[in-house]
């Protein structure tokens, strides 16, 4: 996979195949080809991007891909998925191989500027943590001095890890893998004392271990990891569509709209809800985004509101059982907040 994408980047840059990416109107391209090419996690990260035995994709990131497809085409199945490793994801987006990257990717300054991407929405507020075997008797990350730590290369995790140990005057031995599966296997085999990645990832990886109860996630969260979709820079129409697809899911939760009641809610007297669902007379909200009038309805019908998607993929309705925490609505003490849709 790495070779294929590297070849694609070189090919695109050298031979000019990337010209279509350079036109910076991904929305028109997507409409013309009839599907969204979405870069997702290629390591079966349960809850975010994972494929079942029948080949169906599911997860919080996958739901966002579906939402975008539903908003554009009114059909959540019009998505093609490109499974990507941490290392391959950026070249894939830069080269135009994918239209959007929804692969639990941290929004950071250098990625926003230097790498030539744009971020706006955050579909999961995460932070980096550590997982250890309970038998080690470690209760805090500050007791990890001298430990061997498994980490995936090419991630913000790798940088945070170095910074955290430096800041606390501790040393560690990094054991670095390119693919998450190899890091999982090495941790499982006892090659490392601790495993570090985003806390959500740790819960997911813990479930893959032979005996999940033998492992625990330490309380320290050592970084801010706002995970969100990325698109190529200078393509604001496409950035709008991707971001507002997420905000529509959050707004739907704020309004209390879900898959069951969405048709009913169209008759609501609340002007905000009517506008959101495209029921307001001569509203141009959808058209201005380059989307059909009922784009928000299609999103809710396809994936439900943000709360539904969260609970289904990573929350109480999933094996991960992650609390809403920072990802609760702003009205409930969390950070998920949709700008006004008007």
């Amino acid at each position, binding site marked *: 996979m790495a070779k294929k994408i590297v070849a694609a980047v070189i090919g695109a*840059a050298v031979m000019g195949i990337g010209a279509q990416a350079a036109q910076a109107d991904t929305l028109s391209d997507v409409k013309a080809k009839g599907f969204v090419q979405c870069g997702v996690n290629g390591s079966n990260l349960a809850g975010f991007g994972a494929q079942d035995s029948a080949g169906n994709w599911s997860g919080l990131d996958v739901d966002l891909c579906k939402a975008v497809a539903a908003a554009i085409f009114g059909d959540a199945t019009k998505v093609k998925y490109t499974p990507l490793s941490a290392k391959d994801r950026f070249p894939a987006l830069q080269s135009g191989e994918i239209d959007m990257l929804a692969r639990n990717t941290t929004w950071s300054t250098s990625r926003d500027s230097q*790498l*030539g991407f744009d971020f706006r929405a955050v579909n999961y507020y995460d932070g980096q943590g550590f997982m250890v075997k309970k038998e080690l008797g470690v209760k805090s990350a500050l007791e990890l001095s001298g430990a061997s730590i498994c980490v995936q290369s090419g991630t913000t995790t790798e940088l945070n890890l170095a910074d955290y140990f*430096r800041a606390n005057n501790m040393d560690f031995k990094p054991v670095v893998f*390119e693919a998450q599966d190899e890091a999982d296997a090495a941790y499982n085999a006892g090659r490392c004392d601790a495993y570090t990645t985003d806390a959500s990832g740790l819960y997911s990886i813990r479930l893959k271990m032979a005996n999940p109860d033998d492992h625990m996630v330490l309380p320290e969260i050592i970084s801010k990891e706002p995970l969100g979709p990325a698109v190529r820079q*200078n393509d604001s129409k496409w950035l709008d569509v991707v971001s507002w697809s997420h905000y529509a899911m959050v707004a739907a939760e704020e309004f209390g709209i879900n898959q069951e009641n969405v048709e009913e809610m169209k008759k609501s007297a609340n002007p905000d809800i009517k506008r959101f669902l495209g029921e307001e007379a001569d509203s141009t909200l959808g058209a201005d985004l380059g989307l059909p009038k009922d784009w928000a309805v299609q999103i809710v019908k396809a994936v439900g509101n943000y709360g539904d998607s969260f609970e289904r993929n990573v929350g109480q309705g999933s094996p991960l059982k992650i609390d809403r925490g920072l990802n609760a609505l702003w009205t409930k003490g969390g950070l998920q907040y949709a700008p006004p849709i008007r």
Partner: protein
Amino acid sequence: MAIADARTGSGDPPKVSLLYNPALRSYVYQIVTIVVIAWVIWYAWHNASQNLARANMTAGFGFLNSRAGFDVAQSLIAYSSDSTYFRALQVGLINTLVVSAAGIVTATIVGLLVGIGRLSQNWLIARLCTVYVEIFRNIPPLLVIFFWYLGVLALLPSIRTIFQHLEENPDAVFFISNRGIYMPAPVFGEGFGYVLAAFAIGIVAAIAFAIWANARQRATGKRPPVLMVSLGLIVLMPLVVFLFAGMPLSFDYAIPGSFNMRGGMSIGPEFLALFLALSLYTASFIAEIVRAGIRGVAKGQTEASYALGLRPGQTTRLVVLPQALRIIIPPLTSQYLNLIKNSSLAVAVGYADLVAVGGTILNQAGKAIEIIAIWMLVYVSISLVTSLFMNWFNAKMALVER
């Protein structure tokens, strides 16, 4: 026109149209080829820089001076997360060179032994060598690496087991665990320089003695005891100096730390897996090359040396191998180059070679084209240097015609 005129003037060659003038044609073809190549290179460069600019990415190697920010597990030179990307690449390059050099030496020795073994009269040895060659030659190198890493080294005792073992046997100094091999590290005290000097003098003296012994053998037909004298010079003399210098050598033992062994010397499983896989994989090819080389020496040579009274061992060493080397060296060079290039599979087990470190930088700095250019340049350079050396060696071993 001038060429055509001159030819008409001389009168000898028949008048040929400019279109069919062979000299002019060959010039035109060469010029057109050069122009096309130059245009392709210019176009590729121009297009790449334009596309990068449109994707809001900058080209250039300035990023190499930025802070790396990540740690590297195996480093033979001083490196921390505060070092630059350039320093990180140096660490990777050194790791590539180390595993390649170690792999080449081991692969050559194992390959030579197995290659000769396959020709052995001993049924068991010959069959064992055949099985070895057929197994390792027919498995992809990546699988061989995974076999060693996940199939062998990962199953070794855990570090906790080692700690327990140490409690029961406090005198143990050498450990093998799934985190690598731990052994005492030598600490050289004051005066150890004399021992090294004695060792160096011993080697020089032994070489001089061997040259003198050869001359004497030619002159008198009697061979002085080269082996015993060499051993005395290289081993005994430094040993005596070592004793007289007051044994200036101590050891730093590996002791249990909080999570890992502390101190001592250690070799990580990532290096071991890659080294073993590359050596044993390439050795199977070298064995076949050696076998082909030996088979390529005419049987009459062996018979003639027997007729002269040489023993089988001497025949192999003095008559067959020197001639076989001439056949062996050129394909051997290809195998060395293969091994160097296969070392880039390190990335699969997390050994910090040039490709693994470069890949991390590629992702952190977003400089795909630059990093790939560096990779290609470095591998081409290493391979060319290896080829040059082997060509020199080949020329030296080639049949000197008198």
